[in-house]
């Protein structure tokens, strides 16, 4: 079995408790292969834009994206230093292991 990060689910429980995610428009910076993105999707956000500078990991994230969540999550290659989004676009920005 490959490396299992947080099999006990402490990370996702901490995230769930820390704010209200329902219907929020969310940007995740440093999404990697989408491990955390798919978990955040379970909190009921309005949408998730997930970016990572590594195109290989974005390809993997897209490959792992369940069809049921395809309309909710968009994976894109992108750098935190060069974000190109309009002002006031997101309710929540998550720096996922990337600050």
């Amino acid at each position, binding site marked *: *079995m*490959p*490396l*299992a*990060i*947080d*099999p*006990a689910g*402490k*990370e996702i429980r*901490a*995230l769930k408790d*820390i*704010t*209200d995610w329902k219907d929020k428009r969310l*940007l995740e910076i440093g999404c990697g292969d989408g491990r*955390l993105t798919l978990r955040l999707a379970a909190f009921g956000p309005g949408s998730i834009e997930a970016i990572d500078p590594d195109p290989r990991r974005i390809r993997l994230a897209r490959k792992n994206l369940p069809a049921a969540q395809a309309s909710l999550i968009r994976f894109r290659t992108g750098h935190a230093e060069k*974000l190109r*989004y*309009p*002002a*006031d*676009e*997101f*309710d*929540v*920005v*998550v*720096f*996922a*292991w*990337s*600050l």
Partner: protein
Amino acid sequence: MLKPGGILVDLRPAPAHRQIGTGAGRTWEPVARLREQLDDDYAANAAVAEVVRRGLFRTERRKRFILDRVMDSVEELRDFIAEFDQRRDLPSQAPLVERLERRYKRQPKPGKVAVRGPMHLAVLRKPSPSGAKMILAILPDASTAEQLLNNLSEAEFDLNDVSVMMQDTTTRNKIAKDAGPLKGVLPMQTAMSLKATGAPPDAVQRAQDAIKNGKVVVAMKIDPKYETAAREMFKDMSAEVL
């Protein structure tokens, strides 16, 4: 990009040397502490402190929790460690892994190994537009607060912008919904959350004391255009506006 009043969630390893051990979850036993370069973690802390100091964000919540990376074998752990053993200018971690391997081999049957370390999680809120304000007031009791909410509603103020805080949450839930600038905040968390909104320390203290003394604290987010009218309505109900 981030809306005014929106939040930034900062999730990352806390600046601490992680431990390696045998087992996982409740059966995990520490064997050695890794020697890691923590400069990046401290730099991230400093960067966050700087944006808070400059007023670009307010720290609203913060917590730590323990996170495990679980592997099936010592070989997998070696591969994992090799990544940062190569890129960091630190003493090799190999002796620590060997120590773990000796312990691992003494186990009656092959188990898991795990790297365990603390994680940092914080919510930082971007301040609302400069025009947005908050009225903070103390009311003598729940029925007065209820009357105030009725008056505000009749005047077409949005009760989603109003928080009602009191010790008796059952009564609170009867007269008001969980909304406004203190949405999701428990009575005992009121002071911390009010500080995060930028309320003056003396007002925070008086609000906290009022709740302890069985009074009701109302916080209302308000457009400056309607602030005077709203304040009048508070005063009409004998509110002590802070």
